[in-house]
């Protein structure tokens, strides 16, 4: 891992921020909020179908939800990193067109090519960041919920409810996180 250094230029730091795995605070918050909601949704199924009382199994549910939240959030992060570059390539022309039309409207102020390119890069990064986050959430949530339903109501249906919950939640979130680490070139 490269040591933190203040020797990077402004452009290099921007590039690192744009194409690195690290998330901004806002992105992390959004991801964790989505993850906790999707991890808490199965509690309804386990309460009503597997007849597990919420109060009786509160500690188990809390631990399961937190572990699943962490794993699903990791899946979001990994998927978003893989999708961002692809989305950025696809939106390149559209963003350039948007910036060009904005600059044409403000044609009283002449803008240098360098500044225009920087604006396009910044805007492309912004759009790619947002879209890759949304896609990562959709994909990871779908995989997690499908896996959970398969594990809990098909493969481990006849197991005791408590064992069923542990295996299904950890299994579904673990496999979702594992699948997100695979790289497709």
């Amino acid at each position, binding site marked *: 891992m490269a040591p933190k250094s203040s020797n990077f230029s402004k452009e290099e730091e921007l590039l690192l921020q744009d194409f690195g795995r690290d998330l901004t605070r806002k992105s992390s918050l959004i991801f964790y909020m*989505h993850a906790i*909601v*999707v991890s808490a*949704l199965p509690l*309804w*199924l386990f309460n*009503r*179908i*597997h*007849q597990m009382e919420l109060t009786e199994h509160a500690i188990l549910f809390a631990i399961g939800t937190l572990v699943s939240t962490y794993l699903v959030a990791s899946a979001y992060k990994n998927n978003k990193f893989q999708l961002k570059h692809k989305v950025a390539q696809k*939106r390149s*022309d*559209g*963003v350039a*067109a*948007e910036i*060009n*039309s904005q600059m044409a409207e403000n044609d009283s102020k002449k803008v240098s090519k360098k500044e225009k390119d920087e604006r396009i890069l910044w805007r492309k990064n912004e*759009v790619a960041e*947002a*879209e890759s*986050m*949304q*896609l990562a*959430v*959709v994909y990871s*949530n*779908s995989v997690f*919920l499908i896996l959970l339903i398969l594990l809990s109501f098909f493969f481990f*249906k*006849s197991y005791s*409810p408590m064992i069923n919950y542990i295996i299904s939640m950890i299994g579904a979130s673990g496999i979702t996180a594992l699948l997100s680490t695979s790289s497709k070139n």
Partner: protein
Amino acid sequence: MKLYLGIVLLLLTAFAKGDDEKAKIILVKRILNDIITERNDLAIEYNLYNIGDGVATDVELADSSFHESDFELISGMTSVKWSRINAGSNVTHAVVVQPLRAGDFNFTSAVVQYVSEKGVDVTFGYSNEIGEQEILSLKEYNRLHASHMMEWGLFALWCMPSIDVPLLLYYLSKRKYSKKVKKN
């Protein structure tokens, strides 16, 4: 003449043996339910087959497996009498009970007593033993076998925002930038 008399006597003896025919009853006990659940009807069928050559009289069937502390009798009787069961015929009797508690229960044999021929003491017979069967609790039965349509429907409804909202935002953004490319 003596030969013919001998043959006639022999034939009479053969027919006279018919008076010593005995009845023999086989009792088969069956549980008709696939799943036994607490507080749900449980149907038990008893089949009595007279496989002997004689008429069985004063036939009594009794099954003391279903004590009132464990089962509630819904229909039928656990002690039944028939005055006669002819040779080669059978009778069927059914009882419906409701288990009062969940858990494993040992279904033991029913007993049949009958008079197999005149002047002979009562004969006792036992049915097959069904053995230990699991009585599911209502909670467990609902968990495994109820359809839960409403629960699934509500779950699908609550999952929709987690998937549809980000998907909608993505498609709105995608459409916006695709339009800009087409415009230029």
